[in-house]
């Protein structure tokens, strides 16, 4: 890879050890992909996780004096104070790791968003921007819905890019690599955001790796529907980008999405396929111990919907009810009155927290319900039924699923 004089100086350590390590990682990636050079980015999102590998790298950078050069947001870890006062079982050393991770991201000058949907409020790319966004829903959302460009980054490569303000030019930063690979004919009726969850699950699992081009969608998908499609297709498969010509920005026709080439494969999705996916996700039934929502983090509209469904109701005494969201969204939801309604019903709205964190250890042997297959995938619980939000709320009130 061609390096500028300045980049060579950084690699020699002239800008400090933290910056040097960040560039070393980017150069290794660039060399692996035969990138010709580094290109500037305008922002980054580091999918911080509060795990040991994450801690090692962010401390390596922070202790070496590195600072983010472009806006770099962070993924949820967990609200340490809140959860340790609530559950005694969380091991103390987990809190130490989480605390050190959060401190180190602060020292490198990251935006402490602790949100997995930063593209909604804290760190928003525009069409055509070159960025480095890790996190399952963020990568495809930024590429497809916004029309900026990012590779499927790891937390560390995204953080390194944020520190250097550059990324190697490879993968989805090159137009030819943004070509559609699979034609997906959607004949299923997509009524709501849960249908997009099921569609994402099916498409990701079926294609596994590629850039699907979806046709047959008649109504403009809304933000939450698109977030769900992104998050789930990038968990059941590795879908970093997709097109819905007519609705997503980058290609206005199917032909343009395939760059006039032929699709590698064609797939048709009917109501039958979505029903099959739904069946697959009903891993158990009966009594539930908790409901877990907000994977990915709920938007304000989704928090409002929870409040509407719970208004005047009482959650069953044996069920804990959790809604995960960002601090930004919770502040607005509090101010608007949604949090009050959810709390009066016996639910909790928590910030800064991911479902895949040690703070949920109390539910290790319990059965829950969620509207997100991604939440169930982490296997932090004995079992988790995946169903529509309305069904989750109804089960929370009754204490059991249908």
């Amino acid at each position, binding site marked *: 890879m061609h390096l500028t004089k300045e980049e060579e100086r950084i690699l020699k350590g002239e800008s400090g050890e933290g910056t040097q390590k960040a560039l070393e*990682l980017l150069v290794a990636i660039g060399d692996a992909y035969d990138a010709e050079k580094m290109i500037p980015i305008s922002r980054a999102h580091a999918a911080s996780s509060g*795990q040991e590998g994450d801690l090692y790298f962010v401390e390596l950078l922070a202790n070496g004096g590195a600072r983010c050069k472009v806006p770099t947001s962070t993924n949820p870890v967990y609200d340490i104070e809140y959860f340790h006062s609530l559950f005694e079982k969380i091991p103390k050393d987990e809190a130490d790791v989480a605390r050190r991770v959060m401190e180190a991201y602060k020292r490198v000058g990251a935006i402490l968003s602790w949100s997995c949907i930063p593209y909604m409020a804290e760190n928003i790319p525009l069409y055509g921007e070159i960025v480095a966004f890790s996190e399952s829903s963020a990568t495809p959302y930024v590429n497809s819905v916004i029309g900026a460009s990012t590779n499927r980054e790891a937390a560390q490569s995204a953080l390194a890019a944020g520190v250097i303000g550059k990324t190697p030019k490879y993968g989805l930063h090159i137009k030819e690599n943004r070509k559609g690979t699979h034609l997906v004919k959607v004949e299923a009726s997509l009524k709501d955001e849960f249908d997009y969850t099921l569609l994402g699950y099916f498409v990701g699992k079926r294609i596994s790796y590629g850039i699907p081009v979806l046709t047959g969608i008649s109504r403009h998908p809304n933000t939450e529907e698109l977030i769900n499609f992104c998050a789930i297709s990038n968990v059941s498969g590795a879908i970093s980008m997709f097109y819905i010509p007519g609705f997503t920005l980058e290609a206005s026709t199917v032909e343009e999405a395939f760059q006039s080439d032929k699709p590698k494969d064609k797939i048709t999705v009917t109501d039958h396929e979505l029903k099959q996916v739904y069946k697959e996700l009903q891993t158990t039934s009966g009594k539930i111990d908790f409901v877990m929502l907000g994977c990915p983090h709920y938007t304000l509209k989704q928090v409002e919907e929870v409040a509407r469904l719970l208004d005047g109701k009482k959650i069953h005494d044996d069920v804990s009810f959790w809604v995960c969201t960002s601090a930004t969204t919770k502040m607005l939801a509090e101010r608007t009155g949604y949090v009050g309604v959810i709390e009066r019903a016996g639910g909790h709205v928590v910030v800064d927290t991911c479902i895949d964190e040690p703070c949920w250890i109390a539910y290790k042997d319990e059965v829950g319900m969620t509207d997100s297959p991604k939440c169930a995938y982490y296997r932090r619980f004995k079992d988790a039924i995946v169903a529509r939000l309305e069904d989750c709320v109804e089960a929370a009130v009754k204490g059991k699923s249908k």
Partner: protein
Amino acid sequence: MKGSEISLKCHKIIGGYGEGEALVSHEPICFYLTDPKTGIVREKDHELAGKNLANKVLVFPSGKASSVVQIDGLFKLASYKVAPKAMIVKDVETVLIVSAFLVKVPLVDRLEKDPFEIIRMGDFVKVDAEKGRVIVTKGRS
């Protein structure tokens, strides 16, 4: 032939030198699905199930699974000193590069001949990523 040596050019991704007995997997590997204290593969139905990655030279097609679990998985193996000594891979992706970078395990690809043709279980393999060279000493005939 036992004891014969084959020298192959390769492409360095993460530098350094590592040597050890070859452990060959035709299936992608997720480091999270190994026992972090011993390096034994715990993934049921995996062709390496029950085998130990510790101090081996791992030959495999690619990594798999989400970035967080993959990186944390290899990191835990390294902190218990049971990570592979070097890795030879066919299809590399960003997450695998980051994983190897963090634990400083040499990682190479693009061997001049198909590693799955040349390298067998039990061969002794030296990976000199810096010099772009892999040396295989055949263990069995």
